[in-house]
């Protein structure tokens, strides 16, 4: 194929660089500087897609972000697939491969279009919901085929080879859009010394100036753009971000920008020769002031068959001709309500192609461009509009008729003009999307026939988006906005800068025209499309209002107007205008729907940044992690920590299962000696004269008598009386304590202590500091623990001088250590704390000396079994925020007679905590000794009861005990402690029913003799 629509001169394309690309399997050639859309138009490709619902042939309509049809699937290989790319925003590169997202087997001959054509008249809004809802159970089946038929792109099935990242920015002035207003604003603010970020979503900065017929200071406007960009780039306080879309505007002037860094060059960064560079970058900008210079989107007119390929926006036609040197047809009819659109006809004619006529809805258009058109001999038909496009795969003619705007009827005889392109313009809608993201309301301006951005604190709108459409006005407004923004961010001396002079073309007044009347009613006329991407027609909106949908939000949801990736860029105002007419209300009365981030689609890669794979979430390691790795540990995630779960051994060439390893580790602790890395436990250093008083207030039990050298277990409740954490606290000195918390509770408990100190009891003299990471903790436990440790410590471990629940300073393997005689296994145990930098040394020494005792490392699973055998709870596993210390049977740890009303005390006498039928903590012994109950299994008392059975409790922990030789469980059961010896039942989902006896939760050594030796 040749570039039949390319003109020989002009444009901002590089004719020396031809780029080959593939669209829908066909090879084409374009030029460097093209977008995919301009290259397709240059090659005369009319049909780029099939529509979403009716499968109608669709061509390129626009030249920017507002393009509804040319939404393509990009990528040569599976792993480089990118869905929902707008061809109008995708720079052409060598070897680009793109496909239409809709259409099977291809867009030229689409099977679904017959469904659309046959069923078109019978597919009103809500069609799918109305048609496929019966029987409801079949919806899932229907949906699969409907979605396949519709298809809006697909995600790749393979991992993205590219990388993405984020960058945080702070600036004084964030300028969104680098058209005339944005450039003037950036220049003005930058010269004043403000930190400026200027972003623009297009390949080149300049916006409308890149295809303007205007001159600045007597030379082409592009020259001024180039000089301005050059100056801005040279300034140290300016960051220029081309190819960067401001996609979201959030609270407190936080703007998210999506920068496309390599996708204009190749499929992947490495193919672009930029291996290691991020393909896209999400900039998170906190701005002092935001200058919104997002410009306008032209509104198409809504006439019959306005979706046929060959129907385009007038401004897009100008853009393709002037910027890309592409004339997208041979014979043009322009239908307009305003002067500005006349540029399309003038540009078309200057490109050497035929302008059949300009059809102007106004009776007496009189602006400068109108005069120029007339002077150049173009036929101007006034008081009329194109009411219908003719054609099959492309426009072949335009039906033109006089219209009465007041009465919304056609008045004269229809004239049919032969043409292949119809450009239309119904005026210009300020791009208020970003301002709407903040929650502010756009304000209707009757003079401008559009919504203007509402007031946003910290935002100044400038240029087109602020309703300034003439170039000199736009430049001046931008300059003012930039200067004002600089002044508001502390650059009070900002001076006005000199702006280039325009020719000062005068525009005549536009008229309000949205939907064009037709000889037939909207329901009977050929389809008049409002939202091309979502296939919403004027008739659909009319029907929705007739069916009783009066709120524009309901109309939107019923018809899909402005849904999805389109976000109402082209269709919203027209849709609202039609709804307003049907409801006989004004446009501001009907209102507009809410625009939401993101403004245009953004890849998940950019959202994720480098928070993926290894860096998805922090992995926290203890000082002993290296040893665990070298010794074959399997790891368990406990919060962000990686903890050894169990240490499988290889016996006779076979690696132990978890069950085998845990059984071995459990027996080793009960019979010999084991060692656990307990470094992850939270540790809080508490100092101050009121430390003891404070402990008494936050723990349920008593602390007044705890002497230096002693340790106590404590329960911590919230003020609702429910257990929140537990752990041991040691008295280091009279005013100095070391608190331990659960691994997961460490940060929360520290914040909890600070909360009460800072907000309730600031008079207490006490400070808290986390020392979790400072200490490494090793638990040596089992009957041989004393023998082993005594080989390495200078401390006398004699049971009389170093009692259970004592702690002492000592050295272990020559390293200063604190040794705590506390036990979470029920065996003789020593918890050794050493400064973490020496942990590996001490741990290795323990193993050197432990070999003869068969010292066995064990992980969290064995720890869980051992503590459960002793009936020791784990907060968060055996409790769930609805369990009191009373429920747990831990009355011994509740100091009801303490003088201060400690946290949780009062709530323990509320009716809810006193009621008799609370669930209580018990043990369960399955009747079948081979059964290990499922954790979470529900407990019932009456197995004969029909479903729904009365659930009386549930299993909180359950394991196989190698020491006992059977499974056992911990559970909470209604009035459990009064039901000792009773049988309960556990119905399982597979229909089986387990039986278990309620027993004491302490399965091993109820008197605690083993830990006390």
């Amino acid at each position: 194929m040749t570039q039949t629509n390319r003109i020989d001169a002009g444009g901002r394309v590089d004719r020396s660089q031809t780029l080959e690309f593939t669209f829908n399997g066909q090879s084409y050639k374009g030029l460097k500087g093209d977008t995919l859309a301009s290259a397709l138009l240059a090659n005369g490709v009319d049909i780029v897609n099939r529509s979403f619902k009716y499968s109608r042939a669709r061509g390129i309509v626009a030249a920017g972000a507002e393009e509804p049809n040319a939404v393509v699937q990009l990528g040569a290989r599976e792993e480089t697939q990118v869905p929902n790319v707008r061809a109008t925003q995708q720079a052409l590169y060598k070897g680009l491969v793109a496909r239409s997202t809709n259409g099977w087997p291809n867009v030229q001959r689409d099977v679904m279009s017959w469904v659309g054509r046959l069923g078109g008249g019978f597919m009103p809004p809500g069609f799918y919901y109305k048609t496929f809802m019966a029987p409801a159970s079949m919806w899932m089946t229907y949906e699969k085929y409907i979605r396949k038929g519709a298809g809006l792109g697909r995600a790749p099935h393979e991992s993205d080879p590219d990388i993405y990242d984020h960058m945080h920015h702070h600036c004084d002035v964030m300028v969104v859009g680098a058209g005339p207003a944005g450039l003037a604003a950036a220049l003005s603010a930058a010269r004043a010394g403000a930190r400026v970020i200027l972003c623009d979503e297009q390949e080149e900065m300049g916006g409308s100036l890149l295809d303007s017929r205007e001159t600045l200071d007597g030379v082409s406007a592009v020259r001024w753009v180039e000089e301005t960009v050059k100056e801005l780039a040279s300034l140290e306080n300016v960051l220029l971000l081309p190819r960067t879309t401001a996609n979201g505007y959030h609270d407190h002037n936080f703007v998210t920008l999506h920068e496309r860094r390599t996708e204009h060059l190749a499929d992947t960064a490495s193919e672009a020769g930029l291996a290691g560079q991020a393909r896209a970058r999400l900039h998170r900008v906190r701005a002092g002031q935001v200058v919104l210079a997002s410009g306008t989107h032209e509104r198409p007119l809504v006439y019959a068959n306005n979706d046929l390929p060959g129907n385009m926006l007038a401004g897009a036609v100008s853009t393709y001709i002037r910027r890309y040197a592409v004339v997208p047809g041979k014979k043009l009819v322009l239908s307009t309500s305003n002067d500005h659109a006349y540029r399309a006809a003038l540009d078309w004619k200057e490109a050497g192609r035929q302008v059949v006529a300009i059809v102007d809805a106004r009776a007496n258009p009189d602006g400068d461009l109108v005069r120029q058109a007339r002077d150049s001999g173009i036929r101007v038909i006034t008081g009329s509009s194109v009411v219908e496009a003719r054609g099959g795969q492309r426009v072949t003619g335009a039906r033109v008729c006089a219209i009465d705007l007041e009465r919304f009827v056609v008045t004269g005889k229809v004239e049919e003009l032969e043409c292949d392109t119809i450009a239309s313009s119904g005026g210009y809608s300020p791009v208020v999307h970003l301002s709407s993201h903040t929650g502010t309301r756009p304000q209707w301006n009757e003079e401008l026939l559009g919504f203007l951005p509402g007031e946003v604190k910290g935002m100044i709108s400038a240029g087109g988006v602020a309703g300034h459409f003439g170039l000199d006005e736009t430049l001046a407004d931008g300059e003012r906005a930039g200067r004002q923004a600089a002044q508001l961010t502390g650059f009070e001396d900002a001076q006005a800068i000199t702006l280039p002079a325009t020719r000062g073309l005068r525009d005549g007044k536009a008229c309000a025209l949205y939907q064009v009347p037709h000889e037939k009613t909207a329901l009977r006329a050929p389809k008049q499309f409002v939202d091309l991407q979502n296939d919403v027609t004027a008739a659909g909106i009319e029907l929705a209002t007739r069916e009783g949908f009066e709120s524009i939000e309901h109309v939107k949801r019923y018809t899909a107007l402005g849904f999805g990736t389109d976000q109402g860029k082209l269709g919203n105002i027209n849709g609202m205008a039609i709804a307003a007419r049907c409801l006989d209300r004004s446009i501001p009365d009907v209102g507009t729907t809410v625009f939401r981030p993101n403004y245009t689609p953004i890849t998940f890669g950019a959202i994720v940044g480098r928070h993926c794979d290894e860096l998805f979430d922090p992995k926290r390691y203890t000082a002993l992690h290296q040893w665990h790795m070298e010794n074959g540990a399997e790891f368990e995630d406990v919060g962000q920590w990686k903890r050894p779960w169990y240490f499988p051994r290889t016996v006779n060439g076979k690696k132990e299962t978890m069950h085998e390893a845990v059984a071995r580790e459990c027996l080793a602790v009960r019979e010999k000696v084991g060692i656990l890395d307990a470094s992850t436990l939270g540790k809080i250093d508490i100092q101050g004269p009121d430390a003891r008083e404070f402990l008494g207030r936050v723990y349920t039990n008593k602390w007044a008598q705890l002497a230096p050298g002693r340790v106590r277990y404590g329960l911590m409740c919230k003020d609702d009386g429910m257990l929140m954490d537990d752990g041991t606290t040691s008295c280091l000195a009279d005013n100095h304590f070391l608190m331990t918390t659960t691994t997961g509770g460490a940060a929360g408990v520290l914040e909890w202590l600070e909360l009460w100190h800072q907000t309730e009891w600031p008079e207490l003299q006490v400070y808290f500091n986390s020392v979790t990471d400072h200490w490494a903790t090793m638990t040596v436990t089992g009957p041989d623990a004393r023998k082993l440790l005594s080989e390495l410590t200078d401390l006398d471990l004699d049971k009389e001088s170093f009692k259970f629940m004592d702690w002492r300073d000592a050295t272990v393997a020559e390293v200063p250590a604190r040794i705590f005689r506390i036990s979470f296994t029920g065996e003789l145990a020593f918890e050794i704390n050493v400064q973490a930098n020496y942990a590996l040394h001490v741990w290795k020494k323990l193993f050197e000396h432990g070999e003869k005792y068969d010292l066995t490392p064990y992980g969290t699973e064995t720890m869980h079994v051992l503590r459960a055998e002793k009936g020791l709870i784990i907060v968060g596993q055996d409790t769930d925020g609805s369990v009191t210390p009373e429920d747990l049977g831990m009355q011994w740890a509740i100091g009801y007679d303490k003088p201060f009303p400690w946290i949780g005390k009062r709530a323990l006498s509320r009716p809810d905590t006193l009621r008799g039928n609370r669930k209580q903590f018990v043990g369960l012994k399955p009747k079948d000794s081979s059964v290990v109950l499922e954790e979470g299994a529900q407990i019932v008392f009456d197995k004969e009861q029909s479903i729904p059975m009365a659930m009386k409790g549930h299993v909180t922990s359950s394991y196989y005990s190698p020491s006992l030789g059977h499974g056992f469980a911990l559970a909470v059961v209604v009035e459990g402690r009064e039901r000792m010896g009773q049988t309960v039942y556990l119905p399982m989902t597979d229909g089986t029913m387990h039986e278990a006896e309620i027993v004491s939760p302490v399965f091993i050594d109820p008197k605690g003799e083993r830990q006390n030796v």
Partner: protein
Amino acid sequence: MFYIHCPYCQEYREEEEFHPRGEAHLMRPKDPDNTTDEEWGDYLFFRKNPRGVHHEMWVHSVGCRKFFNITRNTVTYEILETYRMGEQPSITAETEKVRKEQGVQTADGGWQTIGAQPESKALNEETSS
């Protein structure tokens, strides 16, 4: 993403450094043992949920670890002031009304249908209550 002025660090920090901790100025009854079940229940469970000016407690958890209060408009999300623990707000629902009447402009939002004034006008006027 809020931008929050920490009254202790005396500078603005990103929201991700902070945790919200619910309604500010909650008073724990001084004598819980002689508090009725109803009063204790109110203290534990009942919170204000105003449309408009609200006083909230936040903590600068990744920072100075200090708790402080924020006066925030729950409609516009504007933070009207931050102040230290133990201090009283200078802006309340009542004073905020005055601010509005004097013409201080803030972004307004929160409505599904923006621009649709008539049916929501009455509701909008209650904003500061």
